[in-house]
């Protein structure tokens, strides 16, 4: 009895420490967490436009190129957040403009121009760091990789300023932004100043990246810009939905990443990025329409459909000739035996035949379906003949195309419901749906 109480108390204590371990990061680091989650959401939101306009490289460029601006601001204004912001913004805009100028005044394409400009800016930044007066310490590592635990109240304030700005821009200018991303030329012909819109977006992007510096650092900021947006792009066919999903994935990645990092005792920035990458991988695999899994399943279904119909047709032919159904494997050679039995099983399930090997027998419905296929086959041959496809290709092409029944009926409509195929064989008429 006494032992039980001690054990119980021990268990309770364990539970509490465990709870503390789980909850303490949320309590002790709520500032840092809030900051990272907000940054993740805003980067995800803006990332959509970067991904849709295929400007991932520009995001990369701006994030690296803010370095000299940050260093100069650091030199002149020591630590003020506003100064840092101004410096980074100016550097970001200089970069965006320089990329445009280089593209315009040389034969170099935009991707190369981006490479030239941002590396030059970054180099200037590094030289500036090496020339900092003694005593001033600029943490390049923090700039590159971030240090979420060093986030201060001032960082949260900068995020709280930039986040509503980004949301307001996207909500107010939703339609012009959509138009610009879809077709910038069309937007220009409608009198929209695409250049202004572009720089507005770039400025906001530079601002967000600066606000994200301490949380995730420039390199991880690029990942948080592109990956959640790419993930959302995979999942949806509507822009507003993509924006919402990207912001959500960004926020979730940041929050979950931070949390996992505390549990695993790893640096938070990289964990956030890996969480976002995991989201992206899941989207590629499991997306409802474009996912690898869905595509694979769809292909399998189509293969099965074709196999079923081929078996059905072979059976009908055997029946027509008065041959034994047991000869089916020979008629379908070289189709493997297993595939034939699987098809027979599915056909029996659909009520198109009864029994299996060696004596499958077509039902009335099965015979009807076989007739429909013959109809489709001969309609395709008629069409191919009309399209002056060489005769020797008719049969094989029709064998392949006949499995698309709906198209065959559209074909019949266009061909004017022909009665015979080019060889003079009758085309069975369409049977009433039973």
């Amino acid at each position, binding site marked *: 009895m006494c032992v039980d109480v001690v054990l119980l108390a021990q268990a309770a204590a364990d539970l509490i420490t465990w709870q503390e371990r789980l909850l303490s990061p949320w309590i002790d680091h709520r500032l840092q967490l809030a900051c990272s989650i907000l940054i993740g959401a805003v980067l995800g939101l803006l990332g959509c436009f970067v991904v849709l306009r295929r400007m991932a490289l520009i995001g990369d460029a701006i994030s690296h190129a803010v370095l000299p601006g940050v260093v100069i601001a650091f030199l002149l204004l020591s630590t003020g957040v506003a100064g840092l912001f101004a410096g980074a913004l100016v550097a970001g805009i200089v970069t965006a403009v320089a990329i445009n100028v280089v593209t315009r005044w040389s034969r170099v394409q935009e991707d190369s121009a981006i490479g030239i400009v941002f590396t030059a800016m970054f180099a200037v930044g590094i030289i500036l760091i090496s020339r900092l007066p003694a005593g001033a310490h600029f943490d390049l590592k923090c700039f590159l990789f971030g240090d979420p635990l060093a986030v201060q109240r001032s960082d949260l304030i900068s995020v709280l300023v930039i986040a509503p700005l980004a949301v307001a821009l996207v909500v107010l200018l939703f*339609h*012009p932004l*959509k138009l610009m991303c*879809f077709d910038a030329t*069309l937007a220009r*012909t*409608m009198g929209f100043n695409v250049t202004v819109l572009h720089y507005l977006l770039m400025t906001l992007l530079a601002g967000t990246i600066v606000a994200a510096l301490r949380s995730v650092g420039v390199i991880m900021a690029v990942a948080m810009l592109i990956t959640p947006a790419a993930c959302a*792009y995979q999942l949806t*066919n*509507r822009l507003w939905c993509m924006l919402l999903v990207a912001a959500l994935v960004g926020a979730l990645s940041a929050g979950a990443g931070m949390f996992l990092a505390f549990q695993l005792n790893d640096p938070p920035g990289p964990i956030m990025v890996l969480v976002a990458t995991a989201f992206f991988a899941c989207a590629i695999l499991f997306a409802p329409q474009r996912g690898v899994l869905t595509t694979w399943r769809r292909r399998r279904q189509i293969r099965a459909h074709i196999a079923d119909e081929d078996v059905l047709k072979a059976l009908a032919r055997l029946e027509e000739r008065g041959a034994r159904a047991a000869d089916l494997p020979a008629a379908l050679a070289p189709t493997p035996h297993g595939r034939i039995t699987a098809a027979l099983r599915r056909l029996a399930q659909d009520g198109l035949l009864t029994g299996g090997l060696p004596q499958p027998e077509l039902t009335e419905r099965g015979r009807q379906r076989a007739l429909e296929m013959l109809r489709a086959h001969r309609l395709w041959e008629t069409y191919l003949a009309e399209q002056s496809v060489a005769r020797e290709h008719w049969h094989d092409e029709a064998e392949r195309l006949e499995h698309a029944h709906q198209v065959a009926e559209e074909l019949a409509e266009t061909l004017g419901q022909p009665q015979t195929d080019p060889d003079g064989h009758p085309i069975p008429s369409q049977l009433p749906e039973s």
Partner: protein
Amino acid sequence: MTGSRAFAAAAERTRAGGVPALEVSGLTVSYQEKPVLRYVSVAVPVGHLVAVVGPNGAGKSTLLKAILGLVRADSGAIRVLGQPVDAARREIAYVPQTDSADWDFPVTVREVVLMGRYRALGWLGRPRRHDHALVDDALRTVDMSDFADRHIRQLSGGQQQRVFLARALAQEARVLLLDEPLAGVDARTEQAIFELMDAFAAAGKTLVVVNHNLQILERFSAVLLLNQSVVAFGPAREVVTEANLRRLYGGRMSFVDEAERVLREGPSDVR
């Protein structure tokens, strides 16, 4: 009323004081100091379906871009319905080549057509019932209502073209500039697009159509043969002659080209 009679009548109306839909005078445009269009002057009367024909690099697309204000002219003037381009933007609709668009973009057919209303909405406007009604009408006209809520990736080439025409229609512009709407479509789609374009012209719209196919010029009410400068402009049956076509596909103004190259780079024997 088609062909030369219609053209003559419209030209007569224009002379009698009617404003031409499109008036280009002395237009010269260069890319990187190389002229693409030279001294182009053309007046298109209202209500015409005009084909712009010429070899590759003849400046057909550049002419459209100049009219749209997308490229800067070295010299010359463009007036749309009597007004400079910037003042007449709401009267101009551009129908780009379908293969220039991003068909993976996350929008539905309806949303693409609704973009035709953006000019009227401006920067901050939201589409209202009136705009949606115009979109529905446009979709019905091009027979794409059933596809309204589909994603644009699911469209065939001819359907893509019809969606773009619907967007131009929703724009309620009176001058339509179409960049190769008949490229790569089958005979049936071509017929459908022509029927639509004819209907637009009959409703008083003016259409300028960049076109590659010489076989179908009879279907247009006027033809502009363009190769850097205007070779001929008028009703198809008067303009499309063997002599004109030889001029069109034969030499350009090669002496002027050569002289300008010298002025740009210096004579080759100096280098």
